[in-house]
């Protein structure tokens, strides 16, 4: 179970062909790009990877491609969350079978489950595998369904393989409560920011981020983490502001605009599956002006 998460981790988008089918060769190039540009771990398919628009078969094929493309260079975690819990269980089994290093799972979708039901879900999922598990907390996207301090305490007591949390509340009080309680029970527990909100979270115990903008500006993401972890507060704030502007640019219909931005950066990954829109040429042109203004075009890698 020894898996330590730290630094800028990448959760790749899912490249699609024009007919919306999976584009595995491009995906392999993308994973390689992330590892070469400093990703300390790869995790797929987060919502940014259009997880809920992929069939079970596609998710399994993508997971296999991820393990193969990473080839042991950094740890791989597979996001198993699905609308149906039984699908999540099957994806977890598959992740273990293909040699992934961990699984990651969010609180169940849609139903607004009780705290006990969320607890039962994670315990069942965590006990079903011999892999480390990462819990994913995103109360604002799931209408208040969340892992709070009390729940993480119970889960850590029940699950020796719960090693980390992707924490996406982006809220000081929630983050501190989780951090305070979790690290007391398991000092090695890793709390990872959901996107690059590192300046406000690293001083409180955050160890890294699942990047939103790493496919656009990996250098900037790494610089921010370095500034934060080394306590260079003024520099961190400036870099954080820049990444916040990028997050504003990309968060709308995520990851549609992100994929549009990747075209600008010479790393096209195809359309976004409905019901999410695909970034139009006009949107791409607007994104290009913003990337130019932020200095991204001249400071970040172009092409693969």
């Amino acid at each position, binding site marked *: 179970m020894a898996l330590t998460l730290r630094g800028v981790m990448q959760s790749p988008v899912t490249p699609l062909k024009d007919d919306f089918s999976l584009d595995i060769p491009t995906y392999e190039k993308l994973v390689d790009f992330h590892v070469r540009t400093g990703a300390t771990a790869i995790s797929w398919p987060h919502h940014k990877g259009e997880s809920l628009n992929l069939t079970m078969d596609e998710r399994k094929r993508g997971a296999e491609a991820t393990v193969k493309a990473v080839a042991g260079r950094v740890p791989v975690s597979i996001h198993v969350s699905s609308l149906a819990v039984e699908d999540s269980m099957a994806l977890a089994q598959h992740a273990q079978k293909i040699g992934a290093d961990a699984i990651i799972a969010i609180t169940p979708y849609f139903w607004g489950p009780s705290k006990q039901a969320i607890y039962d879900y994670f315990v069942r999922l965590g006990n079903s595998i011999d892999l480390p598990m990462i819990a994913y907390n995103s109360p604002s996207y799931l209408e208040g369904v969340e892992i709070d301090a009390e729940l993480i305490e119970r889960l850590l007591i029940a699950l020796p393989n719960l090693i980390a949390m992707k924490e996406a509340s982006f809220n000081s009080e929630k983050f501190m409560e989780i951090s305070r309680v979790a690290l007391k029970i398991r000092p090695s527990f890793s709390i990872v920011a959901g996107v690059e909100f590192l300046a*406000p979270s690293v001083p409180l115990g955050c160890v890294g981020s699942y990047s939103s903008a790493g496919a656009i500006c990996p250098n900037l993401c790494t610089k921010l983490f370095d500034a934060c972890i080394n306590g260079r507060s003024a520099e961190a*704030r400036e870099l954080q502001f820049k990444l916040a502007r990028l997050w504003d640019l990309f968060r709308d219909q995520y990851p549609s605009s992100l994929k549009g931005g990747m075209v600008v950066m010479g790393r096209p990954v195809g359309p976004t599956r409905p019901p999410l829109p695909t970034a139009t040429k006009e949107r791409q042109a607007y994104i290009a002006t913003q990337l130019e203004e932020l200095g991204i075009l001249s400071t970040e890698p172009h092409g693969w």
Partner: protein
Amino acid sequence: MSTLTPGLVHTTVTPFSADLKIDFATFEKLIAFHLRNGAEALAVQMHAGESVSLSDTEQKQVLDFVLKQVAGKVPVLAHVSDSGTAIAAARARYAEKAGAAAVIATATYYWTPPAAMVFEHIAQIGSAVKIPFYLLHAPDEMGGSHHMNTDMVMKLMDRLPNFAGVIDTSLDWQFMINIVSNAWRRNPKFQLAAGNEYMVSAGAVGATSMITSLSGVAPRHIHKLYDICRTEKYFDARSTQEDIVLLRRAVVQAGHGGLKGALRAMGRDCGQPRPPLDSLSPEGYATLKAALDKLTWLTNEPRGW
């Protein structure tokens, strides 16, 4: 316009006697306590001071009283929010005339007007005065309504030459970063203030002031937290921040009477809150006291007046 930066702002409770009248004798001692214990500014009749439970006349009395007691030693910020735009604007004008250094206002109570009218409400309060105006963003206290956004803040910057900054109690990193990063591009002197004691994250993204109601309970630790954060040594501030979060948690868990209960436990009895806020029962006080006793660092804080 004044270049006020409030810094470490203590916000006071409003002491009440047993008959729930304002207890000015105790209030005098309370203000003196804050001034002796690190307040760089005072914010009066904030929500922690039960502003909404004070009549308009009482709010004026409180402001006049505080200004007289403070006698210019530190700036006094007056919270003037109300449901009606004209009422709040008149209160702002009164505060300016009385000598307040700045006014603070949030969105409307009870009403949920369209965004353009919320903007107009705030803009009219701000434009009623020439002293600095701070917008209080407190979505949780406002029942989840009235989330401000960057667009509104930018428009207020266009409209109000005296718009000095935003006081945030939402603890929302996206909100704070968005506001301050956009506002600074237009006016680098625009201020973000933490509206409670979560100063580490707020400071890391640009907050320069902190408005704290727990300053009446633990002024030394609060001062320590603020001082470390102002030197931007946020890693060094973490343990103090965690201590204060535990204090805050104990106070919040005790309910509406928690803050005054904690003051009583420290030997500074300011009575109970006014209805409709619940008083702290004897059992509730015992539970709060037991929780505070576990915070061993509180032994280094001043007891009594």
